[in-house]
């Protein structure tokens, strides 16, 4: 079976700094994959390369057998990669429901004229969007807050809304950038359950960046460890975490 995401020899430099070098990874469909590493290792840069925020200097990115190397962010979103952000980026001035509906932009299309005169294509699309949005919000226990402004949600719920919004684009691959950042142990626990649930319900392939070792060892099957832009270790979670190089990079000698 072909991998959902196949990355070979990805690299990018900023000025003289080689931020990411010879990064290769292969994620199977339905897999939950972890990307870890110390601060400044280049994890978020990898995400930015995968989603087209940066254009790679070298390397190839294949999504579900299609070459998406060097494409624009919009095209990559349409091709099926959705992401969340390390520092939450919600649409603060819009309602929780509208945040999710905005992400269905390319799946429910009607002309501006249909929107102006509320034709049947507008009504059907909006009704379908409402239904789907509420379904997603229910998964993340946000359905009661659907009409609230996104900015007024507590921190943990904002993180969840971001995942819901990413899922609304109907991705093939979901990238989560430190989803548990700033959460307390109990919230992290809930988040882990939610990620497991999402993976099962939507049959989703997930790549996540994480600092929280408990979360990583708890849910990821495979890991890649980055250090100074280079791959330090790669393989089964339990094996990687025993690797002496990884322990050195994380804990110091």
């Amino acid at each position: 079976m072909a991998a959902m995401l196949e990355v070979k020899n990805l690299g990018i430099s900023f000025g003289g700094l080689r931020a990411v070098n010879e990064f290769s990874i292969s994620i199977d469909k339905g897999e939950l994959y972890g990307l870890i590493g110390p601060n400044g290792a280049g994890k978020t840069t990898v995400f930015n390369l995968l989603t087209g925020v940066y254009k790679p200097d070298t390397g190839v990115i294949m999504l579900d057998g299609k070459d998406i190397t060097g494409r624009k962010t919009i095209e990559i979103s349409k091709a099926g990669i959705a992401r969340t952000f390390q520092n939450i980026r919600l649409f603060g001035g819009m309602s929780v429901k509208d945040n999710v509906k905005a992400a269905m932009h390319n799946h429910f299309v009607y002309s501006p004229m249909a929107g102006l005169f509320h034709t049947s294509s507008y009504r059907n699309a909006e009704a379908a969007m409402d239904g789907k949005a509420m379904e997603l919000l229910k998964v993340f226990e946000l359905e009661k807050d659907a009409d609230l402004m996104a900015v007024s949600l507590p921190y943990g719920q904002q993180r969840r809304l971001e995942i819901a919004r990413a899922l609304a684009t109907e991705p093939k691959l979901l990238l989560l950038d430190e989803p548990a950042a700033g959460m307390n142990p109990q919230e992290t626990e809930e988040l882990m359950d939610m990620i497991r649930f999402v993976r099962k319900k939507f049959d989703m392939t997930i790549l996540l960046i994480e600092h929280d070792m408990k979360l990583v060892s708890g849910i990821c099957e495979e890991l890649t460890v980055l250090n100074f832009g280079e791959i330090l270790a790669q393989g089964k979670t339990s094996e990687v975490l025993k690797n002496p190089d990884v322990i050195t990079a994380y804990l110091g000698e």
Partner: protein
Amino acid sequence: MKKGLSKTTRSNIGTFLIVIIAYIVCEILLATGTMSSGLEGLLVPCCYYIILSVALNLVVGYLGELSLGHAGFMCVGAFSSAFFTRAVQNIITNQTVRFILAILIGAAVAALFGFLIGIPVLRLKGDYLAIVTLAFGEIIKNLVNVMYIGRDSSGWHISLKDQISLHLAADGEMILSGPQGIGRIPKESSFTAGFILVLITLFIVMRLTNSRDGRAIMSIRDNRIAAESIGINITKYKLMAFTVSAALAGVGGVLYAHNLATLTATSKNFGYNMSIMFLVYVVLGGIGSLRGSVIAPVVLNLLLDFFLRQIQLIGDNPVIGFISDNRMLIYAIVLIAVMLVTWNPTMREKRAALFSKSRRGEAE
């Protein structure tokens, strides 16, 4: 079905009702003759100020970009439509048909300008965008002032120099004569026409902001990077909001032009002061609040009328004279005061304390 109306829908219906009730009240006052002539003269201006502030709110409040060139789009709409009306005056004699066509032409030409200017300009952000749009407004105004267009039996003559270089035949007539502008425009704007155009403007902006396209526009305002990551075409929706806003500003210009006998482009009517005044309306009414954009221009214009009438009544009062001569100064002070009250941290704390106290009072 009615039960499921969302908060925004209900608020929008409320805004419509306010406009309709205000119209009916004014019509009753007009019919019974209790409205002063000064106030009556303000009715149509109020309409085009509302249209302009709603149009500008689409860019400032929903797209989140600052435009100081809306007087320019208004100018484009005014001159293109007035030119059209004068040009076809003897061909289309039905006033209503001609006025509707003039509105469509004013909107279309302003939209075209908005689109063409938007392509390069919308790459800029914040202050830079404001500066470029401000320059656009000034350029349009000055361009109109050097254009001379006339026609005679042999056809159209255009010059950027002066009237003589047009070499019009004896039967020729000037339509646009530089700083003298366009003269003898039939007065086709009426309060009713203005009222209908206000309703149409509100309808378009409300429907737009409640649609898929509106969500895309607002997502760009709230977080550009996230908007891109969910597959929204930033350039397309920025241009869309800007073009629609320019078209609506053009409609305001049509109403303005057909309310005058002679249309000229001076710094008083299409200068940057005007653009800033529209911004004052938007900010005072509330950024992103359509109801505010309807109420603010009316209130400010009625206040102006009040001061002007005081001058007529009590003669030369230095204080009132100063206020009416320095309207923009007063607006600026009001604007600063509003920002202090709404954004200053100390004031916000005080306000929050005040509100929570009154809420607690209710609970007890």
